[in-house]
């Protein structure tokens, strides 16, 4: 086999795209994880499916920016519905998430079936958004992903301390005059953007793994938010590259599951073997769940 694949410009392009998707997923996933909104990411990525297919059905073409706009819009709508259901009814947040996820995803699958019965050839490959096919990425797609990555990272960097206090203590954030609602909306929008970017390579079904797994892994290795975000971005990028590599090695496999498997592998390793917080470590140390200090 060798390392000849690195010389292949197509592969390099796809690997860079997957790495960026993983990195952004890891960075934003850290905030989602710490705010206990991991499931919201899952609901939003599943909710993107009907948007993709509707955009295709209405426009009749597979123009990518159009499909991603549809995906973002419908993911957003899903998130909004979760918030509304939680606030306006007696339904608990977990049930609201499950409800939105299954209704949107089910509707998306129905639409997908309708689209695939169309006589034109244009619908071919639409089902790849379910599990992702990084090889579909073109040069301009990767350029778009790179641009969006820079944009997202700049926003996170600028609003670093605002997002930090929002994630740790929203009541205090509001008390010092921060517009908590607006920041919440902004952070959710960034996550929607990350999901839309990732649909290509990872797909709607497993996108949440790219959000949650690198962040969960990173938490095991550090006690500082700064390092956690950087580590999660790194783990995400690594998963993106490894997953793409494995899928091209094995051949014609969708990239989404491979990327998700790599991310989950890193998370599993971290949960077991990380110093202080890993299961192996805590099992050895007497009387200790995690490294909790004295209580009381």
């Amino acid at each position, binding site marked *: 086999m060798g390392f000849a694949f690195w010389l292949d410009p197509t592969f390099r392009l796809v690997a860079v795209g997957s790495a960026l998707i993983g990195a952004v997923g890891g960075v934003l996933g850290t905030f989602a994880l*710490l705010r*206990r909104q991991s499931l919201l990411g899952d609901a939003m990525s599943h909710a993107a499916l009907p948007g993709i297919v509707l955009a295709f059905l209405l426009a009749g073409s597979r123009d990518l920016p159009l499909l991603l706009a549809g995906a973002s819009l419908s993911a957003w709508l899903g998130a909004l519905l979760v918030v509304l259901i939680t606030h306006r009814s007696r339904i608990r947040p977990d049930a609201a998430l499950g409800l939105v996820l299954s209704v949107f995803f089910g509707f998306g699958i129905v639409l997908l079936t309708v689209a695939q019965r169309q006589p034109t050839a244009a619908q071919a490959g639409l089902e790849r958004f379910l599990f992702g096919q990084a090889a579909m990425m073109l040069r301009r797609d990767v350029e778009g992903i790179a641009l969006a990555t820079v944009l997202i990272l700049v926003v996170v960097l*600028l*609003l*670093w*301390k*605002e997002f*930090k*206090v929002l*994630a*740790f*203590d929203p*009541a*205090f954030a*509001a*008390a*010092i*005059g*921060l*517009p908590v609602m607006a920041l919440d909306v902004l952070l959710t929008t960034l996550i929607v953007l990350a999901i839309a970017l990732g649909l290509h390579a990872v797909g709607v079904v497993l996108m949440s793994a790219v959000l949650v797994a690198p962040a969960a892994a990173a*938490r095991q290795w*550090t*006690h*500082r*938010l700064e*390092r*956690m975000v950087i580590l999660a971005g790194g783990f995400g990028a690594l998963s993106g590259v490894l997953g793409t590599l494995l899928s091209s090695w094995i051949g014609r496999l969708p990239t989404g599951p491979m990327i998700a498997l790599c991310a989950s592998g890193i998370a599993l390793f971290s949960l077991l073997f990380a110093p202080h917080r890993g299961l192996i470590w805590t099992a050895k140390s007497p009387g200790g769940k*995690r*490294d*909790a*200090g*004295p*209580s*009381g």
Partner: protein
Amino acid sequence: MPFFPSVLHEPSTLVDGLAIEVTDLTVMYGERPVLWDVDWQVPAGVLMAVVGPNGAGKTTLLRAILGLVRPVAGSITVFGRPPAEARRWIAYVPQRTAVDWDFPATVLDVVLMGRYRHLGWVRRPGAQDRERAMEALAQVGMADLAHRQIGQLSVGQQQRVFVARALAQDAWLYLMDEPFAGVDAITEQALIEVLRGLKAAGRTVIVVHHDLQTVPLYFEWVTLLNVRCVACGPVATAFTGDSLRQTYGERAIVIS
């Protein structure tokens, strides 16, 4: 924009004025009144306890003063200003249980959050903020734990960190929600000394408290709250068996 860089502007009505004036305040959660027609006046510069049974609306009262809940009726002024404007003079200690202490941060990280309002958007805390945060930590006896991960703190240390964060805010009014909950006797003594220091420096301190026994020991003013404001005033006149019974019902243990 309420989130702005600011030096410590002194409120204009500090001397002999009222820190807080609440008139006819009613707050509802759905159909249920949490605060009902509350009239409440807090003179500037007092150290006051707010006591009452569970669900009496103590936390809601603090949140209303911060402008974080929308009242159905009534008005609130803090140093003569509406809450949204007065926020820059207020430091807030939420209940310890309101946050996840497994958050990846050090003690110093959390205390530095008290400086955020002074910094405004985008700017990061600098050497001066670090210095102020370390001072605040020293005041609560936690300076040597500045770089400790917050997940490793005891309950008493967590409360001290929250109080230190409020101190770093450099405010005129301190609203503290159960800062003594779950702490040991040594921490309680240390914290009450800090509160007395604030009072001595002319600050107004309002503490939601759960231990009726220590009210006369620690505080000179008290508010008894149970949805309505039952009594408010100096401990000597307001903290009576009669008003305690009105607040807690007949099962109240009367403390002389």
